[in-house]
């Protein structure tokens, strides 16, 4: 299954939903925000969002900035 994550195409077969994906990437759920096909999905709803071919996902967090 090809999915775009942060602008890069990735081939995934295991993660079934957004919660799986965040876990598989070793990210701390409280530290990231997920945008799924341009829609912000809150952490509590990740498990209910099944991934499918050609999805586009942005995973962002806060960094230093002025």
């Amino acid at each position, binding site marked *: 299954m090809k999915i775009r994550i942060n602008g890069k195409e990735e081939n995934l077969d295991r993660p079934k939903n957004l919660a799986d994906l965040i876990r598989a990437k070793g*990210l701390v759920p409280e530290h990231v925000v997920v945008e799924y096909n341009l829609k912000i999905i809150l952490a509590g709803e990740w498990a209910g969002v099944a991934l499918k071919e050609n999805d586009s996902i942005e*995973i962002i967090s*806060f*960094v*230093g*900035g002025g």
Partner: protein
Amino acid sequence: MSDDILDIGGRTVANRLFIGTGKFSNYAVMNQALIEAGAEIVTVAVRRVDSASKTENILGYIPKQCFVMPNTSGARNAEEAVRIARLARAGGAGDWVKIEVIQDNKYLLPDNIETLKATEMLAKEGFKVFPYMGPDLSIARRMVDAGAAAVMPLGSPIGSNRGVKTRELIEILVKEIKIPVIVDAGLGRPSDACDCMELGCAAVLVNTAIAIAEDPAGMARAFSEAVKAGRRAYLSGIPATSPCASASSPLTGFLINSA
């Protein structure tokens, strides 16, 4: 002075030095600088997570008393700024947002038109919007009409440390604009920040000059003190200048005169 509180964006702020969190050598150094300055308002940016290098969470290094204002850096138009602002709010950053819309990579000068559009859109969504902008009076007036919480005119290009090159334009904004004027970008030394406060600006935002100083915590404190001094001077009424001398000592009763 102790009750000189800035009422802004639905909050009350005592420390008028806002600090940006970019460019510090590490988060512990940043944390020390924020503590030393007694910072209350700090900015952060929003970026894609690089899962290859799982970096620490910056929010864990921002002292509890600080309120975080995300910026929309990286946005090239109003729509991108709105998207970043929404992501930041979803990340728990509260409802303040500093709009940064920039296409020019050499000078990092803001696009006032797109910034205005983003300000309109985000103010309607309930954000407290702080547009970083070129110090133009007409645009500033439109920012007020659009519902901005403050205007953030630049002193000189971001990270340039060149000081308040736009001083006369900022002076006009302070006189004409009824929402807080916060000088952002280019302040290179505490005297620049002090100058802005003497002019009547409500606050200043400093990042680079503190972050890249040899001793960031020391510089943060110096900026904080300069901002307080400038503010106190403004409130005390700075005397007018004069082209000629006006003696400070009495001009009568000289010892060397006979009578």
